[in-house]
């Protein structure tokens, strides 16, 4: 795990949390959208909160795809859940809202779960190319090697060589 990869995971967390909260803030201003009034969606997108929320969620999607290109799904997903913790902390310390004991327990559980996963290897799957048969015998070594970035990139064929510099 390099610093840049931690930065990508942080992006997954922050963009998801910020995007979601901006969307919900904006949607509360625009009001309910029903199936009979689908034009409401267009009005909703014109709301600046909703628009910024959509941009942030696109940034989330980009960093999520980035993370999934070098880490397991079960490694990246807990990072997305850290966004809930972030939102609760923002609510408590920036907006000075009340956070109930049960919610603090929820924060502790999510943080604990993230800690559990973060201490293990980021990549354990061996599905870089479909042509490689899955070999369970190498599974143990993989985590260590993959973290150094050694074997995974070796067999990535370069497409569209025309743009190669």
């Amino acid at each position, binding site marked *: 795990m390099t610093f840049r990869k931690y930065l990508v995971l942080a992006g997954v967390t922050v963009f998801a949390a910020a995007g979601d909260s901006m969307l919900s803030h904006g949607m509360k201003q625009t009001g309910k959208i029903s199936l009979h009034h689908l034009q409401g969606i267009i009005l909703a997108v014109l709301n600046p909160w909703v628009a910024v929320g959509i941009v942030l969620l696109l940034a989330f999607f980009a960093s999520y795809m980035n993370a999934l290109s070098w880490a397991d799904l*079960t*490694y990246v*997903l*807990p990072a997305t859940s850290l966004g809930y913790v972030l939102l609760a902390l923002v609510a408590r310390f920036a907006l000075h809202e009340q956070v109930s004991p049960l919610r603090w*327990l929820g924060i502790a559980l999510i943080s604990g779960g993230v800690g559990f996963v973060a201490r293990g290897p980021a990549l354990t799957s061996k599905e870089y190319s479909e042509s490689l048969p899955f070999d369970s015998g190498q599974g143990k070594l993989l985590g260590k090697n993959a973290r150094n970035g050694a074997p995974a990139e070796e067999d990535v064929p370069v497409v569209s060589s025309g743009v190669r510099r």
Partner: protein
Amino acid sequence: MKNAHTWGGILVVVFASVVGDVLLARAMKQVGDVHELWRRAGAWAVVSRILGNPNFFLGVTAMAAAFFSLLFALSWGEVSLVAPAAASLTFIGNAFAAKIFLHEKVDRRRWIAAVLVAAGVVLLAG
């Protein structure tokens, strides 16, 4: 009966988002480490490789289906039930699906994490 509808909706949301997550994860594993690819072949190679991957499109489609079914489920059931139930069941479902379809080594550490996160999401929404 209304309860059955709500839970049916929740299950549809969970199913669609698990399918979407697995397909997107598989697509990005096929694309390979994007930092490495970017460094070697440039940004255009990254973009064209992702957009040229059929699993990526199937995954995005499944995610869109999950999003819209969530909207419907939210209009049938209580927000305080539907949103946390769908989110936490998706975490559990993804752990199973990642093990079965992506051959990830979901060891005890990751199972515990999935359960902790799922429980935490329920508590935070409550």
